[in-house]
């Protein structure tokens, strides 16, 4: 029987999940570049995407000497991202619902890591602006039936971003009861689709290419 994971292994697994979340949601956010409903949101989503992918890189660098290999050379089933971040380009209500749910969950997770991981404190400074953006849109859309329906639909996915111990905190912030989550470790069809696009350049590059 395999030995139970050490605390260090557990932390590394948690960080890999966090980095994969940031990479994939950053990639999904970047899909709005050029086609967001208003110019300000083109800029906002592009900038947020850039930050999230920067966070992913910094965490991959903690875990490996080759961040690109960790980001792009794994098979889709080896990724540890939560299914929430994989969902393909959504309508605006769902997009904002996902951003808001993700930022609320991410704040809970990052706050818990800040004490032990200096990088988490740095990430948290930048995330302040993602939260402002998400809260601004939440305030604007929360009275609409489309947004409420989107939040309810994505709620089991949002729970899956956090370990069970942190879900009560998320429930209190969002105002919905803890239900059965769409868990990390399972994947949606969205991951294979985005993986295909995300890794295409690297897979097609000749062996020995320098980046």
């Amino acid at each position, binding site marked *: 029987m395999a030995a139970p994971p050490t605390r260090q292994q557990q932390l590394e697994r948690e960080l890999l999940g966090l980095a994969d979340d940031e990479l994939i949601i950053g990639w999904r956010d970047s899909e709005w570049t050029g086609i967001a409903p208003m110019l300000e949101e083109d800029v*906002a989503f592009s900038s947020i995407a850039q930050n999230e992918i*920067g966070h992913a890189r910094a965490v991959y660098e903690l875990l490996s000497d080759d961040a690109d290999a960790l980001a792009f050379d794994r098979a889709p089933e080896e990724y540890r991202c939560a299914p929430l971040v994989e969902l393909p380009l959504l309508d605006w209500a769902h997009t904002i619902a996902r951003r808001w749910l993700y930022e609320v969950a991410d704040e809970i997770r990052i706050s818990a890591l800040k004490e032990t991981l200096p990088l988490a404190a740095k990430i948290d400074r*930048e995330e302040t*602006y993602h939260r402002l953006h998400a809260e601004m849109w939440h305030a604007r859309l929360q009275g609409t039936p489309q947004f409420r329906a989107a939040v309810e639909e994505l709620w089991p996915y949002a729970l899956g971003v956090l370990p069970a111990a942190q879900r009560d905190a998320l429930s209190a912030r969002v105002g919905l009861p803890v239900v059965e989550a769409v868990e990390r470790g399972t994947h949606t069809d969205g991951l294979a689709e985005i993986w295909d696009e995300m890794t295409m350049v690297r897979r097609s590059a000749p062996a020995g290419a320098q980046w």
Partner: protein
Amino acid sequence: MVTAEQVWQRFAEIPDPEIPVISLVDLGVIRSVDVQDSRVRVEFTPTFLGCPALEVMKRALEESVRELGGEPDVAVVNDDSWGTDKITAAGREKLRAAGFAPPAPRLIQLQSAVHRCPYCGSTDTTLENIFGPTPCRSIRYCNGCRQPFEQFKTI
């Protein structure tokens, strides 16, 4: 033989790649310079983690050390040691003079939420977009002189 003082002086001449009115020393991203014989160890912190200028800054630091006859060893430190409070007083003034509203000290900014126009000094300004041309900037509009301006984000 290169000295730490020479290295600091040289670094004070390297412009920020995206806001060239201020230097990397003004920006406060150089954390330490340690000279051992010809080897120059530099610790440097990124502003924003996803900032694409990071690699450019690192290469500029290495190149400068080589020009002074040193062997560069530039380490990127991803801890929480950089915030906009690390921008020097001279750096803030250079930003303001170039039309970038400098970031207020973090504690004051988070409590007061007052943003001053870099052109006319009015505090009657409104947020146009939290995000701007680079991760470190927001877009605001001055109702006093009717001028849009870039606000360096306080982090």
